Each structure stands twice: as C-alpha cells, then as structure tokens.
C-alpha cells in the first residue's frame, strides 16, 4: 500500500488521486467509491453528491486559487496541494493561506513532485501529510527521510507550525 507521512510518522494510505484527462468532462464522471482526492472541477460539479462523504478530498493544482475553495472548506476533511515540479513553490503559499487565513483544520497533503529535502518547508507551511510519488523512495529511504522534518530546531521566522517569530519566542541576549 502507498505510504504517507502523517504528522511526522509513516502510515499506509490508499486514497486515490483522481486526475481528469482532457477528454473527460467533470460533470460526466462516475464517482469512485473509496477514499479519493478529486480535482477542483470535479468537486465543483459534484459537490452535493459528495456531501456526507468524509473520504472525499479536493486536490488543487499549483495554479488553482485556494480562495475558490474557501466557501467549501467546512465540508472538507482534507485538501491536497500538488507540486507539478518541486521547484514550483506556489503550494507553500496555498497551504499557509488555508491554515492561517481560512483556519482550515483538516489534512493538508503535499502531492506530486514531493521530495524529502523540502519536507521541512512543507511542514512549516502547514502540510501535515506528505506523500512522495509511489516508488520515488523505498520504504527504508522513507523511514530515513523523516529526519528531514527535523532539519532545523529553532527557525527564525513565524510560519504555520510556529506562529511566533524567534524574536517573540525566545529571550535573546544582546
């Protein structure tokens, strides 16, 4: 089963990430049973049908606006943010906005080109679930990669995981 880093620990996870190909109209889609993340367009088209299903999350691509999802966040238990390439940093802002502006308490999952050397930043921006592509890392490497979550022990600036900057958290001597 695919692995997921959830709150700093490795867990099994079977959620499907539903990707529409260009020929598929979101309205015409038959909805999968079982845990799934659907793209924004599918969510918009089937919102009412999903109501009551706690195993349905929405995934946003890096060019999607989190603002568009804001009205629905109350009905969602999980949002996934895609990194089309690990160098596309928009999802960091999206996660930070979901947490700090919209107060989203559910799962925020990093999907796509997710690499261990960015885990620390993801965690700081409010991702509590991190899912490298299946096959990217062996189980042993994944286990080892958890260390990256602890790369720095006392960062300078405020972020989601640490809402106060160092200068407010610590008594720093002159």
């Amino acid at each position, binding site marked *: 089963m695919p692995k997921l880093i959830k709150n700093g620990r490795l867990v099994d996870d079977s959620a499907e990430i539903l990707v529409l190909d260009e020929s598929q109209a979101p309205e015409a889609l038959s909805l999968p049973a079982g845990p799934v993340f659907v793209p924004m367009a599918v969510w918009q088209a089937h919102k009412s049908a999903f109501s009551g299903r706690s195993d349905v999350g929405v995934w946003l691509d890096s060019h999607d606006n989190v603002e568009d999802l804001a009205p629905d966040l109350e009905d969602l238990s999980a949002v996934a943010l895609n990194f089309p390439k690990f160098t596309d940093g928009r999802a960091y802002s999206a996660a930070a906005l979901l947490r700090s502006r919209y107060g989203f308490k559910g799962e925020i999952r990093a999907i796509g080109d997710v690499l261990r*050397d960015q885990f620390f*930043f993801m965690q700081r921006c409010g991702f509590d679930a991190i899912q490298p592509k299946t096959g990217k890392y062996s189980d042993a490497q994944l286990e080892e990669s958890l260390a990256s979550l602890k790369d720095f022990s006392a960062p*300078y600036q405020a972020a989601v995981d640490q809402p106060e900057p160092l200068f407010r958290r610590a008594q720093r001597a002159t």
Partner: protein
Amino acid sequence: MYRYDPYDQRIVDERVAQFRDQTRRYLAGELTDEEFRPLRLQNGLYIQRHAPMLRIAVPYGLLSSAQVRELARIARTYDKGYAHITTRQNVQFNWPELKVVPEILAGLATVQMHAIQTSGACIRNITSDPFAGVAADEYLDPRPWCEILRQWSTFHPEFAFLPRKFKIAVNGAAEDRAVIQCHDIGLELKRDAAGEIGFRVLVGGGMGRTPIIGEEINAFVPWQDIITYCEAILRVYNRYGRRDNLYKARIKILVKALGVAEFKRQVEEEWAFGKGGPNTLTEAELTRVAGHFTTPAYETLPSDDASYVSQRAANPAFAAWARRNVIAHQQPGYAVVVLSLKDPKRAPGDITDAQLELVAELADAYSFGEVRATHEQNLVLADVKQSDLFAVWEKARAAGLATPNFGLLTDLICCPGGDFCALANAKSIPIANAIQARFDDLDHLYDIGDIELNISGCMNSCGHHHVGHIGILGVDKNGEEWYQVSLGGSQGNQTSLGKVIGRSFAAAEMPDVISKIIDVYLGQRQPGERFIETVRRTGLDPFKLGVYGEAAVTERKQNA
C-alpha cells in the same frame, strides 16, 4: 557588527549538517542532478566551466578580521590561493571541489559565516551601503534593518522556491550607494513628519535582460511593519509571478504586467491580514539587533591630524592615494579607506590569500577588526585614524592593495565572465585588464576624473553594465565574442540606464573604443563637468561620431 548568539549559530550548524547529508546523497546517486541543483544553488554552489564555484554570503558586506582570515585559509587550502569579491558584496571561490564543500561550510560556520541563499530562486543576501554607520551623509544606519531582514528571510519556508531570485537592498544615506532602484525590493530608510522611522518601499527594479528602475509602492511603511509588508509583497509574487518563462519570472515583469497601482492594491490587500500580526517587529528586537552596531570606541581627535597633513605634503604618491582612496568620516580625525582590488595585473575584485591575511591584520591594528566589501568589488577599512593612514598605505602598497584609483576609470566593475562563468557570452576580465593597461597613466586618469565603467559577460548583468557611465556587455554573434557599448547609465540617486551607442566591437578594438569615448568627453566637457554630466548634456551623438566616424553617423541618420 552582528555577532551570533546560540540560536544563530545553531541554524548555521544545522545547515552544515543538512548540506553534508545532501551532498553525500548526491554523490551516492540518491539525488538526481535536477533534484540537487536548487539545493546546491541555495548554498551558493554553481557548476561552472572548470569546477564548482562557491559563493559565500557576506551579509550586507560586513566582515570581521577572523572571517577574513578564514577566507584566506579557504583560498589556500581549497582554492588556487585567491578569492573574488562579487558585485553583490559576497565572496566567491572558483576552484573548490564539490566533495569538500561541506568541509568548507563547516569551517565558515566556526567564524559565523555561511553560503545560505547566495543563489537560487529565493531571497538573496540583503545588500546595503558599504559605508553604513560611517558615511558623513547617513541619516539612519541601515545595518540593523539588514540583519533583521536577513534573519526573517533565512530559510523562509514559504519563499524558498520563488519564480526567480529575489534581491533586497537597504539605504539610509542622502546618496544611494546600495542601488536600491535596481532591486526587487529597494528600501529607503526615512523619517515621517512626526519623526518616526520607516521605509519608502520601491519594487520591481532590476537589471538583467529587461532593466527596469524600481517604482514606489509605498511612500512610508512604519518600521514595525516592514517584515509583514515584505511578506505581503513576496506572497503576491510567489503566487502570481510567472513561472512559464525564466526570462519573465522576475517580480519586475509582474509589476509591469499589473501596473504598479494594481500590484500595490494586491499587496496591501494581502498586507491587511499580516499587518499587526506576530511578525510585527518589536522595540526589544530592534534594540537587541541595533545593539550590535554600536559606534566603536572612537578617540576624541582633532578633525585634521597634523602628521597626516605633513605626510601628504611630503609624499606625492601617498597624497595621490589619500586624494582618491580616503573618504570623509562622520567622526573627526577618522577616515574611511578603500583598499583597491583593481590592480591591473589581476582580475577585478580578486584577492590572494596573503592579501586577505594582510587585510585582516590591518583591520585589527587600525580599524576595530572590521572590513567591508563593496559592490564595486573593493574592500574598505571604515574606521582608520588619520594619523594611521600613512602606515596603512605603506603596508597596503607593499601588498598591491593601494592602487590609487578609487572611482576612476580603472576602478571598473567586472563580472567573472567567460573565463569562469558557464552562462557567459564573452570574456570580461581580459577586456577589463586591457582597458586598465591602456589607461595606466595616473595623471591622465585623474584628469578624466570620476567615472564608472561596468562590464558584464552576458545579459544577466552581474557586472551592472546597465548602470555604468560606460557599460560594456558581452554578446554572442555566430559563436564569436563581441562587445556592445552603452553610455549614460548611472547608479545612485539619479539612477539611469545606459543607451547602446551602436554596432558592437571585437575584443581587440575595445581599448581604442574607450579611448575615443574618453577623448570626446575631454573635448566636450565644460569646466568641472564629470563624464556622466557631459553625456547627459550632450547626448550620445558626439560620442557616436567620435567612435564610428562621420560616415557611420550620417548613414544612420539617413536610415532613421
């Protein structure tokens, strides 16, 4: 200067460990080239023509003597015995091997240095006035603000993968020596009518392929809000800056596309959420950081030292150096000394390990143990007693660090260019050296007076050619190296971008071209007029005529 506390030290130590592990995984094949690339870049490590190039951060250009000695050791141990001062006040090594870089970083960490965010699509080293804290025209010291912003931007989790690099500069003096109009964010310290400190904020300036002068986005942001304000700018940029085209990814393109008014609206809408939040600066933090930038223990001295006056009278060579390389200081009896790294026999900005050792020694003996790096690629001793200037000069001269050319034609800015840089279209160092060799007569140089000549080996403009009074840009024509010349650029309060004068030249023509330009100036200038002022007054035509001749100019006019 700022000294690390245990928090700062731990962050840098943890960085060394992190990068050591990343390098190990890369060398073991666990990280691909593509995955390792941004990681090494955010540690200042480029893969260049000959070897990796390592860029080390010198936050806003300040160095302690211990740091200078460590740089000397690195130059000796891991490089070919020299270091290079960059146009962003940093230090570069051209020859380290990848596998020793973690070791170099560990050495740097012992003297509170690092290579964090000296490259890559992140917030880069904050730059400032090299004469901060001592310049006679300074009204507010920019250094505490630079340090506060350095800490905020170091490993900022949201802004580690921006569309493109992001540069911030801070100025607090009447004359802008930090080129704030050519930065992604330019901050000008000021006081409002009530005497409160804050910042005029410019955004979207930059050089590169599309040079643009920054525009004002806010006339006064109170100091408490400067982090939240910058954060709002960065968030809008991170979300909406273009990522589809490397050449259109800088914030200046976003600002131009939206218009500064709309960009400001978006920033301030975002700012409304962050303003007043935890990132609001506190008086305590400002006091803590500013406490590191206290004035040194100056002696009370007469404003003109008698021995300095008589030494100048007795020794013309010393007088010549003092006239160019010694600058007025806020403190009576003290002076600012520029140690020129523009010896025509070396690449501009290069300094050997032995010279670095000497600079450290001079700093300890005569300048409170501190050294500064300037974006014009020189070093500065900022607090020298006038009575010590002669001793400093003698020692610096013996080491080749007293070329009396500060601000003159041969004190040019020059990027590493095709000799080292993989991105270059053309070499820049040989052009610089050829021009320096042509203008080797000091009297002639003094007669020409203040002038800035800047050379870049490609459109990335690391040599700031757009803002050189004379700008030289390496271009590629069918695989050959050519040089395009522009005139009329300037940095400082009247920042302007140079205009290209016409067809480009082969390397061998360049000294003649510069001679012709200088001759036109000498023929055209009015009494007391500096080169740039003449160019502004006359326009480019006389210079085109001087360089290309009558025929070329009339022909162009007819075609126009």
